[in-house]
């Protein structure tokens, strides 16, 4: 059952990144859309993510529940030392979710809409930024369990170049995923072209921030190279991600849309595999070289058994229902 629980944890994180990420990305795209096109972007986006967005964010809940039930030490170490970025991320989640729904369900459409829009786009940017910062901090080796002052214990655990680079990289990837997703949801050629442009910009941003991740890793002694270059699986994954990048640009310029989604999803999955495979089963790198591993902190046997069964049975209910939701509400090309 250990493996089952760990697979579900990885799956929940991956799906949150892909689906929740695309969802955040939609807001990021809106943020970087010129005023005159904003309402069009908003419409396409609403049609596309309206029915599914709540469900997309459930993956975060699943991941967090697996962590606190199955790996409590990982959950509490993160909660204590990454309290501040977690709190900021939560504010982002609260602001974003409510603004999205409020702007649609305000019975009177007046200048309150402007307020909802602002809150929505900025929180769509801040939330994945801080999610990325948290992910980066877990790997950064800056979490110091023995720190004896506030700044070392609670600020520099996440405020470092590596974490911030991962945050920016994550944000760019979210924007990229969203643009690719929205291309397939467009009803007119003109809209399609706009999102293709966006996808290109976001991809360039991702490449730039990706490079920044490598530089900052070298600077702050995160053994990123060991994970993605000197490890066979890591190297394969990173090569596949780069290859798919070339293919992606080709398809993008050709305007092929549906297969783009799969490819973008594949690319992001490969990036996650590349970063985490060699690091696995270690989860948190601490200052001084110690690590907190999934296997050494796993909960008692009976807990893992029942958690595993709950996840298996739960997914039998969730996945078909969720699949049908996506199928039913996908935009038909006219």
């Amino acid at each position, binding site marked *: 059952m250990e493996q089952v629980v760990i697979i579900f944890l990885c799956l929940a994180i991956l799906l949150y990144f892909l689906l929740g990420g695309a969802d955040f990305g939609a807001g990021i795209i809106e943020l970087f859309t010129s005023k005159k096109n904003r309402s069009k972007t908003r419409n396409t986006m609403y049609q596309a993510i309206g029915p599914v967005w709540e469900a997309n964010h459930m993956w975060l809940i699943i991941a967090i529940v697996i962590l606190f039930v199955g790996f409590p030490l990982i959950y509490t170490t993160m909660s204590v030392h990454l309290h501040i970025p977690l709190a900021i991320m939560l504010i982002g989640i*609260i602001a974003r979710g409510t603004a999205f729904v409020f702007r649609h369900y305000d019975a009177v459409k007046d200048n309150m809409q402007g307020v909802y829009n602002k809150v929505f786009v900025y929180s769509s940017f801040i939330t994945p930024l801080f999610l990325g910062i948290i992910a980066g901090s877990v790997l950064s080796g800056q979490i110091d369990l023995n720190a004896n002052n506030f700044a070392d214990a609670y600020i520099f655990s996440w405020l470092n170049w590596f974490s911030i680079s991962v945050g920016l990289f994550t944000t760019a990837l979210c924007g990229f995923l969203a643009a690719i997703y929205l291309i397939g949801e467009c009803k007119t050629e003109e809209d399609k072209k706009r999102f293709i442009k966006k996808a290109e910009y976001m991809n360039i941003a991702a490449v730039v921030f990706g490079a920044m991740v490598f530089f900052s890793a070298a600077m702050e002694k995160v053994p990123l190279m060991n994970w993605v270059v000197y490890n066979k699986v890591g190297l394969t994954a990173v090569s596949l991600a780069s290859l798919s990048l070339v293919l992606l640009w080709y398809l993008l310029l050709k305007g092929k849309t549906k297969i783009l989604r799969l490819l973008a999803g594949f690319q992001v999955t490969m990036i996650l595999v590349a970063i985490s495979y060699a690091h696995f089963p270690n989860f948190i790198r601490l200052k001084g070289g110690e690590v907190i591993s999934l296997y050494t902190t796993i909960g008692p046997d009976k807990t893992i058994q029942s958690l595993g069964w709950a996840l298996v*049975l739960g997914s039998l209910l969730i996945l078909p229902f969720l699949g049908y939701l996506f199928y039913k509400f996908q935009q038909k090309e006219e």
Partner: protein
Amino acid sequence: MDDFLAARSQMALSLGFHIIYACIGMVMPFFMAVSHYKWLKTNNEVYKHITKAWSKGVAIFFATGAVSGTMLSFELGLLWPKFMEHAGPIFGMPFSLEGTAFFIEAIALGFFLYGWDKLNKWFHWFTGVVVGVSGLASGILVVAANAWMNSPAGFEYVNGQYTNIDPIKAMFNDAWFTQALHMCLAAFTATGFAVAGVHALMILKKQHTDFHYKSFKIAAAFATVAALLQPISGDISAKDVAQRQPAKLAAMEALYKTEKPAPLLIGGIVDEKNKSVSKAIEIPGALSFLAHGDFKAEVKGLDQIPENEHPPVAITHYAFQIMVGLGTIMMVISVTYFIVLWRRKTVLNSKWLLKLFVFAIPLGYIALEAGWTVTEVGRQPWIIYGIMRTRDAVTPMPGIAWSFYLFSAIYFSLSLIVIFLLYRQIKMVPVLYQSSNTDSWNK
């Protein structure tokens, strides 16, 4: 503000905020399912409009409940890491099931809100029912987790170690059923009275009477039945608490001295320093009866409990009084409603009764918050009753007060916006739901 107090306040605030939205998300889908069913069966458009109008309220509340619930799942760790480190694997079972229930609720809500004219009409109706059932299941599961904190089970605590962990036993602890039953009825009562009251107000204003009276009847039916059942559940809970948590029961009734028979105190001013209560109405032997089903039974007072294990008495006592008082008022309104309905067939002409319902709009929620105050404050100083003290569970990070102020501001403004949005929804009813076949909304 000291960090420990700030952490407790922030937790109380987050729970108190979330609980209202969670209740609405649990209960409203059932109201909608009824009106939706009536629309499908009778083809009376008003029922379709009611369903749609309510579903917009539900969308607003569900989103707010979902984000505040997400917040809570992190907050447990942000504020109480020591608690979660040990409790997570023990009481996590209901949370892992709740994850599934909540997920299904979100999917079903997607179908329901966006499925008008797109889905088979009975499948569409069914997704609405799924929203309600999974919402209710989520609520019950989360309450089961809370019940574990009151009635720890499924592990052995030896020399500070938690061993022999059995998450299933932990989930089905002694308190889960009584607490879940009380909470479900409270959710139906509170939400039912609030919704019925709002529609009663609109009837009194003579706006769109047909629409509002049909809505009123559905909400009032749920509210009144639940309010009549609640005292029974309350009685079961009281007897349960008397057995498991004598300190909590003593605090609820401000019973400083063990008495046999013990009187029931109604109202009264608690003086925590001198350990006394003044100006209360005493009903001799009634507490003995409520706690143990026997007018002559002994009821344990706080004098039999070590001083450092006393919960705050005044808050628990006042909260309990508020809960019971408001519950009684709602029960009386419910009885009156049935009498009027039985004699006159309609309450439309009984303005005074409609006014009573308007008066009762906030009562259920106030009672609900008071009830949770009793449960949570009455459990202090423990976070896991008898095992771990709340003070020992708090995060080592200083400066929690700032976090408390920040989240207070956020929740306060969110509440204002939600009220503002509801006001607008209600105000727009005559414009949005003209009875005709052209339905321009939501397209």
